[in-house]
């Protein structure tokens, strides 16, 4: 077998050294009832590299890749162009096949990269400290709610109705087990986010208010007032961002008073990959909060010769030291995705990120205007970055999305899919536009949408 270097002669020699007659002797502690008489049944036997590749290619081919169609899907995961050098770097064996840097003398590459990554994320978010990443945005969102509870010693979180519904589900799922109360809501189909309604839900027991920016409908609004309202009640403001590219164009959450900023980092460097692995970003504005943060942290220090070096630090928060008293049970981070993010962010730099954001916004404005011109279609948002909500006449948007797919157009995400069974949201279609979107793509979507909406009206 191509991945197994031992020869039969090796095996015989080694058994002799061990003093065992056969490999079965090494499994004597397995009880008879669990001993099998051969390979596990109903599974195929070994296969050549070529045969396996063919098998997997056959499945890959059944999928419609985003790059092969006019593509407008967002809602928490975005398609951006990833420079070729990102993949070159993450495929270097020294990064790809390394472990968590527990032996820092031979892991300075990973550690320095994480220190740079933490700096990039903290600066992007307008925060003091970022960790070395979590699994994804949704789990980072729950960790922020849990951390706010530890800091305020309160057990109630108020979620904006315009928080990604999967994120709300994750928070509510976890809260069932920790005894936290989660006050959530559904999005209201309005031009502006309902900040007054959100403010009204904050009370003296509230640990945190969670808002998404840009929100699930693509809307953006100044969060300073909600930050003040939260702080007036002794609560923290948690801001969730699922599109980091936006922060090249709009104010950072930290600048507007967010206490904890979390988000999905997939947009930069990682790719769509059908939902994972992604990259949870987590940062705090107040450096004093760092000891309540979940996840790994990399810090600067010196070695015995006085040279600068980096180590994982403050690990007394973590499960392998604290066991049942840890701030989180998290063991791993999303190291290779953090590297991909960091390399892409390094290639962009301040200038490139600003330009990338501007290009996304420019194309999104063109698309919004063109699509709002389609008879039976209107634009909900006053303000947006690269994603906006269209209201369709006639058929539910969910049906339209399916029919668009049948015509080879990946036309967006219907709110009906995200919030099934809620009539008020059925006509809404979320459309995302990035630098990868072409003028032809926009025109194709407009034409197909017009035909389908018209057909529905008849």
């Amino acid at each position, binding site marked *: 077998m191509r*991945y197994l270097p*031992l*020869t039969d*002669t090796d095996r015989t020699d080694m058994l002799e050294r061990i003093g*065992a007659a056969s490999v079965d002797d*090494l499994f004597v*502690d397995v009880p008879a009832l669990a001993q099998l008489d051969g*390979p*596990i*049944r109903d*599974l195929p036997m*070994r*296969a050549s*590299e070529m045969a*396996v590749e063919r098998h*997997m290619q056959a*499945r890959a081919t059944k*999928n*419609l*890749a985003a790059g092969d169609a006019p593509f407008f899907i967002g809602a928490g995961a975005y*398609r951006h162009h990833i420079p070729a050098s990102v993949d070159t*770097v993450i495929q270097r064996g*020294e990064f790809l096949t*390394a*472990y968590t840097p527990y032996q*820092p*003398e*031979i892991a300075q*590459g990973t550690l320095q*990269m994480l220190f740079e990554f933490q700096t990039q994320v903290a*600066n992007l978010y307008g925060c003091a400290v970022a960790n070395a990443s979590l*699994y*994804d945005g*949704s789990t980072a969102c729950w960790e922020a709610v849990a951390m706010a509870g530890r800091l305020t010693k309160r057990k109630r979180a108020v979620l904006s109705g315009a928080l*990604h519904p999967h994120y709300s*589900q994750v928070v*509510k799922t976890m809260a069932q087990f920790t005894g936290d109360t989660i006050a959530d809501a559904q999005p209201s189909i309005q031009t502006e986010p309902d900040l007054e309604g959100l403010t009204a839900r904050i009370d003296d027991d509230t640990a945190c208010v969670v808002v998404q920016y840009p929100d699930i409908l693509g809307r953006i609004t100044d969060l300073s007032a909600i930050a003040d309202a939260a702080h007036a009640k002794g609560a923290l403001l948690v801001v969730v961002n699922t599109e980091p590219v936006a922060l*090249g164009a709009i104010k950072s959450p930290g600048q507007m008073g967010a206490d904890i900023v979390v988000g999905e980092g997939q947009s930069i460097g990682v790719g769509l990959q*059908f939902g*994972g*692995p992604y990259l949870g970003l987590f940062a705090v504005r107040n450096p004093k909060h*760092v000891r309540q943060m979940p996840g790994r942290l990399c*810090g*600067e220090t010196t070695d*015995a010769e006085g040279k600068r070096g980096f*180590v994982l630090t403050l690990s007394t928060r973590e*499960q392998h030291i604290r*066991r049942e008293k840890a701030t989180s*049970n*998290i063991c*791993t981070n999303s*190291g*290779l*995705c953090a590297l991909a993010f960091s390399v892409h*962010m390094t290639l962009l*730099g*301040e200038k490139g990120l600003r330009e990338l954001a501007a*290009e996304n916004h420019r194309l999104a*404005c063109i698309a919004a205007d063109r699509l709002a011109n389609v008879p039976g279609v209107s634009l909900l948002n006053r303000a947006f970055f690269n994603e906006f909500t269209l209201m369709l006449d006639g058929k539910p948007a969910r049906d339209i999305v399916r029919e668009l797919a049948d015509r080879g157009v*990946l036309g967006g995400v219907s709110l009906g899919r995200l919030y099934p069974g809620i009539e008020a949201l059925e006509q809404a279609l979320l459309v995302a536009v990035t630098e990868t979107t072409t003028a032809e793509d926009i025109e194709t979507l407009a034409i197909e949408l017009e035909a389908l909406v018209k057909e529905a009206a008849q």
Partner: protein
Amino acid sequence: MSAPNKSGWKPQMEPAQEGMHNGPTTTTGNRALMLEEPLLFEIGHAETTGVDLPEVDPAAPNRLAGLERTEPAGLVGLTEPEAIRHYTRLSRQNYGIDLGFFPLGSCTMKHNPRLNEKVARMPGFADIHPLAPQSTVQGALEVIHELGNWLCKLTGMPSVAMSPKAGAHGELCGILAIRAAHTARGNPREVVLVPESAHGTNPATAAFAGYKVEDIPATPEGRVDVEALKARMGPDVAGVMITNPNTCGLFERDFRTIADAVHEAGGYVYCDGANFNAIVGRVRPGDLGVDAMHINLHKTFSTPHGGGGPGSGPVVFSDALAPFAPLPFVRRHEDGSFDLVEEEQRETSRGQAFGRMTAFHGQMGMFTRALTYMLSHGADGLKQVSEDAVLNANYILRSLEDILHAPFADSGPCMHEALFGDKDFGGGLSTIDLAKGLIDEGYHPMTVYFPLVVHGAMLVEPTETESKASIDQFITAFRSVAERALAGDESLKQAPYYAPRRRLDETAAARKPKLKWEPAAE
């Protein structure tokens, strides 16, 4: 002890000469191929970029509602040649499986096949959106379903939840299902029993789920004390979390008896699957009475560790717990099509699901790699995997037990990892000193100070992807460093000497944390 291998090549073990690293100092601080690399923020500039995009037109109309970013974020850029050099230089300060033997116990640092990487990058997998219409991603749903089927067959379990993002997330998934099942019967119960030798994630997970954690004692031979466990079982115990093979590297031969006792008292059995590589293809945990077990695809099924993630931790469930598993899951229809069961179908398809653990549907990029690996090995190859992994570990145990304290050497064969302790080290030396000495010999050290039940524990997991020559060379090197440790060789206290950095001051790092680059004060 340098037995010739199949090709007749002998490991070259010429001792390095004293002081050979002490040449003249260099102006740059570099030493030939050992190149120092500044921080990104010390070499990049705000106006430098490695991507070509249209210049920003500040006069262009926008819909940003007056929220335009007016101040720079504080990022810097590099052009492509600079970036490639920066990261290439950083990479060379890292140890990886591709460079050498990485016997990190409990982490299963096996070779990562490159076909896995190629497949994961096929556009049909890499470039599809999780919310794409399901008619356009049938092949992706099929892969998830197919991988789930492999995991069920290999573990002898009827059901699987694919969405957990990593091992600890999988543990959480299993324990939450246990709590949901108890709650559905009217009482979540209060206590989860965990052996002292468990991974730290086990008690952290149980505590998160609202359980009080109690230790299960071990026998002197390194296994769970079955009688003590039976005596502790009662109506307040929600379940047990047991790693099998355990973290002492031993198979819990009474696992079935334990499971029966737990079930009899109305509890559930969680098996930590971190060590599944020892038994994959040879033993099915389902035959031992397991109710839930997570599988680290990044250990047993060769997806890359990536310097600390991403992992992937699907959880297999018994029939008793399957109804409580989280959403979403992939369902196959009779016509051969697939769909995702999400919150929408909850009422009709899985009313007792405890909820959702993550956005979207799990680590697809790891699923494609793991399935590729399974198909490559097949049922027969995977059996050979566990057999070779266990053979290699026993070979190491029996080659070093004469010199190093092996606390459970008399407890029978080890499984896929060999455990040693630092008893009898001289001169105040400890396990850490031996580990750092191994770094100078060109090895990544084994896992140290875990499990906690052995003083100065050293947990060595060779995996099945090392050749005999490689293992022999490691044994020779390990033996020589162990001899120095036993003899109290003071020089080990300063090791490593030849790594990119000498020992780092972790105390200083924690006392005054510097977690972000700041520009020097002017």
